[in-house]
């Protein structure tokens, strides 16, 4: 299954947030979206997943989701969005309960994803007992439980400290190597973008338009070893972004 | 000669003393009921003033708080029904009954026994048929409770056959009997007659047939006043009795003539049913005229009977005797 944005346009009241976005999101690839703060990255992600209705243009889904997929477009949120009153296991079970599975089937899926994300021994823990990194791994496990066609990741590592972020980044690379999932990954961190993105979409400041789409052909699992090449990509992105970010920074919050 | 001059001088000083001495300030508790008219008349006609008493009325909504106010020293004299609270306060040496006021008397309309229209249509046409019916009262141990027990006793059924409903306020009981939520009640004649006139309730008997010579209200004061301020208490009772005598003559015996009766009703109207126009208040005041004890005499046997009943019901405790409740040295008892 693939996704395509055609002439996407959105605003809140008088403020125009996105203008004329045309983009393709291929299957089995991670597309990173970067841009200065307030450029509409997160808005775009909400439009893609159907949590908001675009003013103009459309989000088109081509091809069928893979068999066994319960929730084709599945989010991973910056603030994890775990239910604090459910255990790790309960949080994963939550997204399976509305699909008419039997107890045993649900338990099977939960066991499977917890093993895949190496969370089995924490299954009875409440979110408050977990570190930020662990919480985000639970959120990833929950997303995997519904076998999504696309993962929509909204700055998933931003709430974590630098070391945890590094560890989780490696985890995501490993995960992609095994699962070959498709994802839209919104971030403001350029290092994350060049580590994870098969493509990096650069948005301009508000109203957000596509400034450039950077292709990085280096395989994900080989990137750790090619720090130099990644750094080149990163500084190129930064040059693109710097003026935009500066201009965005000088704008008054209320416009 | 010398001696007579001295005597004269002494008399003159005594006179001057009387004239110059400020009146004794006292506070008298009252309910805005016709049955409290003796105090109102004594005040309006200056009987208290003549007795050297500067009276200030303190008004209450019910009898029980008045007894408490005497015990706490907030008021000096009060007139109210004998309640469990009053007896218990007497037991704690706080208050004493010193005279009588309102009482039931053969031949004068007293408290009536009422039933709701629904109960009446259901066949409760005489007090004998009250067994198994609900009966309204303000509180357990109130005069209404006592009247209910007298009726039950004389009609020969146990008091437990009456479903007694404590409703706290007279207004609440009136509402309840009008709407048929309770079956029966016993109440002073002016309220009973006014209710019966509307057709919502029916009078099926008279309390006097069940509790003859019932001493409904008494005059009482603090134990301290009764024991140590004899002069003050005597003056109060004397002035109060003059008010009672005027009331009886004008409205109970009707020996004073219609003009005096009219004048008395007008006077009482200043205190009772003040929110109603005179034309509407006058019949209620006249209807409510029950005998006030002449000379504040006290029916000791009725008081004794009430005390015995309170003890038997377990509403007052201990071995309180009539001597602790009543100071009989002020007025004639019978």
């Amino acid at each position, binding site marked *: 299954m693939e996704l395509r944005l055609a002439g996407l346009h959105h605003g809140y009241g008088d403020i125009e947030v996105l203008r004329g976005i045309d983009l393709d999101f291929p299957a089995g690839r991670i597309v990173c979206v970067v841009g200065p703060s307030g450029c509409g990255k997160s808005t775009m992600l909400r439009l893609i*997943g159907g*949590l908001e209705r675009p003013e103009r243009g459309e989000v088109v889904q081509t091809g069928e989701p893979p068999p066994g997929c*319960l*929730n084709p*477009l*599945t*989010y991973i*949120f910056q*603030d994890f*969005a775990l*239910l*604090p*009153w*459910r255990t790790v296991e309960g949080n994963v079970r*939550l*997204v399976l*309960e*509305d699909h008419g599975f039997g107890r045993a089937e649900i338990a099977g899926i939960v066991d499977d994803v917890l093993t895949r994300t190496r969370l089995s021994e924490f299954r009875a823990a*409440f*979110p*408050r007992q977990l570190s930020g990194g662990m919480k985000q791994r639970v959120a990833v496990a*929950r997303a995997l439980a*519904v076998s999504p066609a696309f993962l929509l990741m909204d700055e998933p590592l931003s709430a974590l400290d630098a070391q945890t972020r590094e560890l989780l980044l490696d985890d995501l690379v490993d995960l992609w190597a095994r699962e070959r999932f498709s994802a839209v990954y919104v971030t403001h961190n350029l290092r994350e973008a060049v580590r994870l993105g098969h493509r990096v979409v650069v948005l301009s400041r508000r109203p957000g338009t596509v400034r450039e789409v950077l292709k990085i052909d280096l395989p994900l699992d080989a990137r750790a070893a090619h720090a130099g090449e990644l750094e080149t990509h990163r500084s190129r992105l930064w040059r693109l972004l710097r003026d935009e970010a500066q201009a965005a920074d000088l704008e008054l919050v209320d416009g | 000669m010398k001696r007579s001059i001295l005597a004269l001088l002494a008399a003159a000083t005594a006179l001057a003393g009387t004239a110059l001495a400020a009146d004794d300030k006292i506070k008298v508790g009252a309910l805005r009921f016709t049955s409290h008219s003796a105090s109102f008349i004594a005040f309006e006609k200056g009987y208290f003033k003549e007795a050297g008493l500067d009276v200030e009325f303190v008004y209450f909504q019910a009898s*029980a708080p008045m*007894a*408490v106010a005497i*015990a706490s020293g907030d008021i000096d004299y009060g007139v109210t029904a004998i*309640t*469990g*609270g*009053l007896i*218990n*306060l007497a037991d*704690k040496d*706080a208050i004493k009954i010193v005279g009588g006021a309102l009482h039931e008397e053969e031949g004068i309309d007293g408290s009536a026994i009422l039933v709701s229209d629904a109960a009446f249509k259901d066949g409760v046409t005489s007090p004998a048929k009250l067994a198994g019916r609900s009966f309204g009262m303000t*509180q*357990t*141990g*109130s005069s209404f409770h006592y009247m209910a027990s007298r009726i039950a006793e004389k009609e020969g059924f146990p008091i437990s056959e009456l479903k*007694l*409903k*404590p*409703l*706290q306020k007279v207004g*609440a009981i009136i*509402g*309840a009997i009008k*709407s048929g*939520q*309770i079956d029966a009640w016993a109440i002073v004649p002016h309220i009973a007659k006014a209710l019966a006139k509307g057709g919502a309730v029916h009078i099926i008997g008279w309390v006097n047939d069940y509790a003859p010579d019932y001493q409904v209200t008494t005059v009482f004061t603090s134990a301290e006043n009764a024991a140590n301020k004899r002069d003050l208490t005597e003056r109060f009772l004397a002035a109060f009795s003059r008010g009672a005598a005027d009331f009886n003559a004008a409205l109970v015996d009707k020996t004073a003539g219609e003009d005096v009766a009219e004048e008395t009703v007008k006077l009482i109207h200043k205190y009772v049913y003040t929110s109603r126009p005179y034309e509407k208040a006058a019949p209620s005041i006249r209807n409510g005229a029950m005998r006030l004890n002449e000379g504040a005499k006290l029916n000791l046997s009725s008081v004794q009977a009430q005390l015995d009943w309170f003890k038997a019901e377990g*509403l*007052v*405790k201990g071995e309180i005797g009539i001597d602790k409740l009543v100071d009989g040295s002020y007025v004639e008892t019978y």
Partner: protein
Amino acid sequence: MAERGDGGRPVAFRGGGFSPRPLGIVGPLVFLAVIAVWEAGCRAGLIPPLVLPAPSEALAALAHLVETGLLWQHLGASLQRLVLGWTCGTLLGIAVGFSIGLFSLARAGLAPVVAAIFPIPKIALLPLFVVWFGIGEGSKVATILFGTFFPTVVATYGGVDNVDRSLIRMGQSFGLSWLSIVRKIILPGALPAILPGFRISAAIAIVLLVAAEMIGAEFGVGAYILLAGSLMALDELLAGVAILSVMGLTVNWLIARTERFLLRWRT
């Protein structure tokens, strides 16, 4: 400040305080001391029985209630009214609170009505309840029901309003049904606000019990206290008040236990 050999001196300690530690034994000790002084004062005649009866007399009144079995009759009658009134008031309150929290129409229509009726002392409405529900159990249960209903509504819709919107969005993004979102996300999310509301409504229910039992009640702790008051039987009055206090403490303890169980996921 002492000079040290090296010419330096320790920095003065300025922190501490402002964090009361739990001293479990102090509360009961103060309680016992007050009662002991009170009893001694009564025995020595410093406190006349008219002003305040001795604690031992109140205890004797309580013992009398237990011996005669009247205690259970009073407690039974009161608890029945409390449980019925509080349960119905709470369930209705939660239902209305949820409607106000979830539906724009209910919010626009009901929230102002609730805000208008909430501050009315329900005791003032007692005569109305008597007319509507009679002098039997109806008006008593209704008084308690009305008293507990409004605080529960306010606590519930406040709780629903405060549920983390990102959790609701998460539920929607996983395609959960509306009912699942309400049951599994909004209800548990509002619980931390609803449960403290229970404490308040339970306290109000006990306060209203005395008022409710003013009308036509033969048995009940409130009726017992009212009767003791009108008879000036101060020892019985204190015994009754003590029973109410114990009822309040028990209810509080039960709710605290429930809270600890249902909200064990919180820190």
